[in-house]
């Protein structure tokens, strides 16, 4: 029985699309043409060496793992195609500064995948109401156009932020000046899911297709 199941698994794996079998879920919007190996780069050495390295680390009592089969996917895998040069309003690495401790604990914004988790079929998988992790206080003296931002923060209405503001700032568009002119919540949520951008298609930095 055991051998029969093993043989069946082997045959299915041999003839079927292995990418689909191995993928833990649908790729995110815009990533349909991206190969697995574009992000999942092969780990250094043979599998045998990788097992060896992990055993050695285990026996030495180290907490870290040696990569097995593929390297862990980090921000650079995203930035290779989504390079915003120096114009990203919220570059992920910025949140590695010690003072963003609370934001790291709540949103982990130092990693692209904290919001853009891959294999979910969604553009943003965490709801998009995370701005309150950092933006809770607004100065009276510092003139901010539009609605009373401090009142919105006090009311915990952080679901309204993306109705006007593009988080990474990669779209050229006219920022709505009042809440009644803002993009609808449905349009924003649809965009975070897999819909068209309410901020328009005029991008400052184009994304690499492959």
């Amino acid at each position, binding site marked *: 029985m055991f051998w029969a199941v093993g043989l069946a698994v082997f045959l299915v794996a041999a003839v079927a699309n292995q990418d689909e079998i191995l993928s833990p879920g649908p790729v995110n919007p815009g990533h349909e043409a991206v190969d697995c190996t574009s992000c999942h780069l092969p780990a250094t050495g043979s599998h045998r060496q990788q097992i060896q390295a992990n055993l050695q680390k285990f026996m030495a009592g180290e907490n870290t793992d040696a990569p097995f089969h593929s390297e862990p996917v980090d921000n650079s895998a995203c930035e290779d195609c989504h390079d915003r040069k120096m114009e990203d309003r919220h570059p992920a690495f910025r949140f590695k*500064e010690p003072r963003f401790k609370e934001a790291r604990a709540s949103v982990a914004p130092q990693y692209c995948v904290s919001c853009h988790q891959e294999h979910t079929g969604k553009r943003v998988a965490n709801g998009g109401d995370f701005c309150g992790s950092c933006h809770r206080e607004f100065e009276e003296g510092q003139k901010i156009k539009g609605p009373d931002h401090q009142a919105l923060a006090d009311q915990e209405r952080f679901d309204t932020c993306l109705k006007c503001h593009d988080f990474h700032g990669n779209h050229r568009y006219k920022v709505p000046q009042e809440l009644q002119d803002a993009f609808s919540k449905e349009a924003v949520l649809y965009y975070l899911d897999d819909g068209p951008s309410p901020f328009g298609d005029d991008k*400052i930095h184009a994304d690499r297709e492959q």
Partner: protein
Amino acid sequence: MAWKVRKKKGENSEGNRRFQPSFVLAVLALLALSIYLFVSAPPPLADGQNTSGRTIKAEALLDMVAAENDAFRTLYTKNIVGPGLKQGFLYDENWLKRGAQSGPLPAVALRGVSVRLDRSKVGLGLFLGAAFAINRGNRFEGEQLALFQEIVADKQPRYFRDAPQGLWVGMYPDIAHAKPCVDCHSKHPKTPKTDWVLGDVMGATTWSFTSATVSAEEAVVVLGALRRALSETYKSYVDRARQFEDPPAVGSDWPSACRCLPDTQTFMAEVFRISSPSTTRALFDGFEG
């Protein structure tokens, strides 16, 4: 009452121990795996610690990179932005916007260095902050604010460990050495402080590194990455300036003498002339072993 004597698992009718076939198979499999992994093993993977045995502490490495960066920034502020303004050049936060006819302010240039360092993947991080930063997002909070207040008092760097992130961190005073610094920061429409004077600690650069020590080889790699980041940042300004509607001449001259900019090679040669003696001294003094 008769007691029934049970045989233990693995004992035969005579009470002698014998091994179950599954146990024997498991031992043989483990033996084969051990031979496969260890006896006939390929060379082990390098553990990433490329070392000659001589190491330098993270604090000493951070001192070096902070001094190199300081040379770059001071030169850029004093010899490019200051005289450049007198030549009619513009500097602002929006220099990368389409059609902009300006260059990066010193703090904005530093952001370019910071981005490039992150991309270099050498484990070195750079952040700029202040208590009275123009951009609210750059204002210190928590432990960094407390340390910054100590830095303001004695103008000396502070070191600490960011344990959750596994980082060794150094904060260095950002002292107003050039008049354009105090003028622009005092007059900026969004500044929360309007009375800056030369010698003030206007902010601090925060540098982080991912291990307590580095080998001689790794220290050179880190320094190399920083120098490339500095060079590419200045080059990005020169490349942009060449596209201005009225572009300055680019060559070996400086804006104190003409409506011109030094090319990347000229500018960086001057940065290295200033920073190299202290970097070389720190490299020789810093190594242990």
